[in-house]
């Protein structure tokens, strides 16, 4: 195996890091040079990762335009080698990269919008979960309610921003009006990413709802989560929140905690 490992490692360095190819790599036909062949592989490497990013970040691409996105993507690829054979895993670090990417500094909301898009991308491919069965909930007696722990859909994500990123995301949705008006100064938001009927959706949460859901996400039982939330937000409405989260397919199951 050692020879194969050396051969492939060197070829990988040639493609990813631009190293000179070893002489054992030959093209024995005269139609083109070795450099042309190596450049085809380098181009495939960059192009496949660029396309993966374009697939994961369609809203960012629309916001900045194709040329700028291409430049952003190629710079990102230079600094972030692929680590998975599944291209859908590529690009998790793009939001951080955008935040520090000098040419994008004028667009303060871009990094948070990218964070939201990555959450949507992950939600799109997340594993399936059963639909919530209310009869299952009905089985528990009132004195068991404080100890209930909810299962959440694997697609569920919460993204906070100082900017109206949910509105920005929704404005680029296929169903949205072509023209949109968003004022960046319209304020912060807490975006909830979820999936129902196999479709990724983004809705806004209030502070109390987000506070409660954060605890539910860490499997804190219903009693504790609700009481802590009410201490901080006396006007928190548990029933409205439960209905909303069941409707949005965020809550998918319930069990008695330990």
């Amino acid at each position, binding site marked *: 195996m050692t020879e194969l490992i050396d051969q492939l490692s060197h070829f*990988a360095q040639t*493609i990813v890091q631009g190293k000179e190819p070893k002489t054992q790599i030959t*093209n024995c036909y005269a139609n083109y040079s070795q450099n042309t062949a190596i450049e085809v592989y380098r181009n495939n490497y960059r192009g496949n990762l660029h396309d993966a990013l374009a697939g994961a970040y369609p809203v960012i691409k629309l916001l900045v335009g194709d040329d700028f996105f291409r430049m952003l993507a190629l710079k990102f690829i230079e600094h972030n080698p692929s680590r998975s054979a*599944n291209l859908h895993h590529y690009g998790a670090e793009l939001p951080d990269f955008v935040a520090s990417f000098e040419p994008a500094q004028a667009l303060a909301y871009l990094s948070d919008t990218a964070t939201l898009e990555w959450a949507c991308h992950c939600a799109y491919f997340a594993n399936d979960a059963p639909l919530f069965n209310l009869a299952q909930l009905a089985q528990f007696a009132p004195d068991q309610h404080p100890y209930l722990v909810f299962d959440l859909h694997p697609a569920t994500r919460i993204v906070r921003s100082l900017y109206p990123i949910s509105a920005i995301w929704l404005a680029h949705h296929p169903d949205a009006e072509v023209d949109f008006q968003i004022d960046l100064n319209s304020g912060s938001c807490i975006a909830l990413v979820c999936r129902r009927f196999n479709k990724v959706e983004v809705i806004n949460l209030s502070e109390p709802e987000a506070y409660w859901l954060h605890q539910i996400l860490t499997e804190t039982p219903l009693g504790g989560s609700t009481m802590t939330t009410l201490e901080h937000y006396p006007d928190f409405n548990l029933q409205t929140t439960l209905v909303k989260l069941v409707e949005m397919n965020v809550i998918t199951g319930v069990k008695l905690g330990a």
Partner: protein
Amino acid sequence: MPASKYTFPCVAGIGLRAPHYREVLETLPELGWVEVHSENFFGGGAPLHTLRKVREHYPVSLHGVGMGLASATPLDEKHLSDLSQLCNDIQPVAVSEHLCWNAATGFVINDLLPFPYTREALDHVTRRVTQVQEKLKRQLLVENLSSYISFSQSEMTEGDFLAELTQRSGCGILFDVENLYVNVRNLGVDAEAFIKTIPADAVKEYHLAGFSERDGCLVDTHNHPVYNEVWDLYEHVLKHLGPRPTLIEWDTDIPALPELLNEAAKAQLIIEQCHD
């Protein structure tokens, strides 16, 4: 062309890509079978849901691009278990991967890369194909690669390598005729010798596609109708190895569905002539 969803019909099929999902499901064109890229359906949600719907109407073949059968890193267990789960769900008529690598220590390259055809590599790939087949509990088809370089360390041809791989692991062969043509033009591979080396019994499927040229190098871009030279080579291969299920692959600048179906009809005609 009525055929059970569970047998691989010896007719033409198409590579089914996202732009055509809707039209295919709404119009249900007469079509022998379809092939999709396995990795696009890992996980759940809309992709898997759509593929299940397709599966209700057509035999489906799963064509992987990420297993890296020759990679110099341990086989990716997660990737394999994702594929295994997908196979259990979809019950494909065939499962295929490429004779290539995509990972070396510290690197993942999301492409189909060639390697030196050595005895050492043959042992290595045989072990990994066996491992995949044991996990999937079925035969894997391995596809010959289109390459832009060759290695002076190679101790045998790709054809020899594939022939011995099938013998040692029991895998089948997905014979990509366009890939062979690209290698003939790029690397001076001897097409006749390649065809003679391949055991006909092991061949379970053919691929056809279009390529493009860059600075004298043919690149396997799947962005064009099948060229006449490749149709000719396909007919020639069929005479020697026999007709098999044949796929039209089109991945870039994807045409309207009727044009793709028309390409499949051309392949179908050649298959039928070969049967006569």
